[in-house]
């Protein structure tokens, strides 16, 4: 469980997050939706501490992240996995080395064990063996995203953060990725937060949905409630694609 309390974040007098309070549940895929520029990435990066917040508290299962010393934060981070909006693979390393990076650094696994774990994780995101030795610049954008997911789950984190994991993927692969994240969340009983503006994802894995507008929490609910919600701004977002009108 991750609980955010009265979070504020601004960049040189421009307030991006305004008094956000939310609770993300364990064992569920929590979706944060909102238009481009609404503050989703800033929220996610504030939660994981890549941005220092101006005000507010962030609890990771009762542990207040905002009050932690750098050392404690570092330890907590070993329980986190994150997929960045751009993939952010290490371009000096191969696909295989990217995924195995933390195993090599933080575990005492043998070469053989690392190779096995890496190939298991890459298999889950459907990366073919022939790409294991490729560098990130040699594989497609969608594949980079999938490798990034494999890298994020390699240590079986308690908390998983995904910033638009399926932007740039075709609809079919998007669905595979969504389901994969959902599946892993259940398997490992993780607290998963996913940023997205893809309504398909909302409808398939939106167990809990948070709608952010202009840095404020505008609405929260489940994927079933979202279709019946009265909020004007949310409706504009949800029914931007006419296809979803028939659900209403």
């Amino acid at each position, binding site marked *: 469980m991750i609980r955010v309390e009265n979070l504020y974040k601004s960049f040189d007098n421009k307030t991006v997050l305004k008094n956000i309070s939310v609770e993300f549940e364990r064992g569920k895929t929590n979706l944060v939706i909102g238009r481009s520029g609404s503050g989703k990435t800033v929220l996610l*990066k504030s939660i*994981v501490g*890549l941005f220092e917040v101006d005000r507010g508290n962030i609890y990771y299962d009762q542990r207040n992240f905002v009050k932690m010393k750098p050392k404690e934060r*570092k*330890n*907590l*981070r*070993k329980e*986190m*996995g*994150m997929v*960045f*909006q*751009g993939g*952010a*693979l*290490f*371009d000096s390393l191969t696909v295989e080395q990217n995924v195995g*990076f*933390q195993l*090599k*650094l*933080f575990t005492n696994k043998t070469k053989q064990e690392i190779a096995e774990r890496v190939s298991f994780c890459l298999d889950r995101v459907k990366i073919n063996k022939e790409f294991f030795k490729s560098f990130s610049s040699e594989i497609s954008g969608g594949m980079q995203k999938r490798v990034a997911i494999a890298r994020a789950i390699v240590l079986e984190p308690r908390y998983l953060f995904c910033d638009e994991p399926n932007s740039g993927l075709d609809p079919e692969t998007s669905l595979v990725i969504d389901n994969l994240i959902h599946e892993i969340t259940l398997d490992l009983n993780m607290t998963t937060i996913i940023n997205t503006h893809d309504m398909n994802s909302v409808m398939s894995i939106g167990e809990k949905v948070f709608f952010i507008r202009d840095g404020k929490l505008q609405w929260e609910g489940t994927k079933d409630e979202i279709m019946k919600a009265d909020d004007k701004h949310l409706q504009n977002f949800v029914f931007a694609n006419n296809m979803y009108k028939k659900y209403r």
Partner: protein
Amino acid sequence: MDFFFHVGRYFSFLGRVFSKTERKKIFFRNVFQEIGTLGVNSVGLVIIMSIFMGAIITLQMVYNLTSPFLPVFLIGLGNRELLILEFSSTILSLLLAGKIGSNITSEIGSMRVTEQIDSLEIMGINSAEYLIFPKIIAILFIFPFLYILSVFFGLVGGLVVGTSFGAISPTDYINGLQHSFIPYHFSFSIIKMLFYGFLIATIPSYYGYYVKGGAFDIGKASMSAVVNTDILILVFDLILTQILFK
């Protein structure tokens, strides 16, 4: 204002770079890699540069310093002293600041803008220490060697060009090289090289680490990094000469 902001942030950055590592396992591998990319790859440039420096100094001496009143061994001696004291240390470092510095800033800078540095942080790794500490160690290790290499090839350059242009006989040149040699001048420059190496490793890293934006900003940061490193090298040359020769 800007100046103090940068100085303050530079020192807090160094604080992060020098905090303790928990990953001895891959630290040495990283250092070796950096010795390769930053040091060994510079050897060719150092050799070519130094041959030309030595050759040009020698020719200038031959054409401007020869008179019946001056002994001919001054040419070898002059070349040796100029190389040992300034050319193979300061001038060489100004050049290496351009080559190594721009390489470091653009590497670290693109890792910043593509969120690779954030990825390291999320894994619970101190990215400043992980990325930059091995570079510092590698450069401090390799710089004295590059200096010695430069002095050697500078002297060879002087010999080859000086004698082949018929300006000086090999015996006179070599006599000059051996004349009143002061070992302290050599150690003085090695000390300078360590300071320069530290500047060349850390200032461009700093500029790369705090880049915001994209390719355009990385280009600008590389430029500022090289310019500021060069200026600081000259400032340190002045200070160290004053301190170590007084």
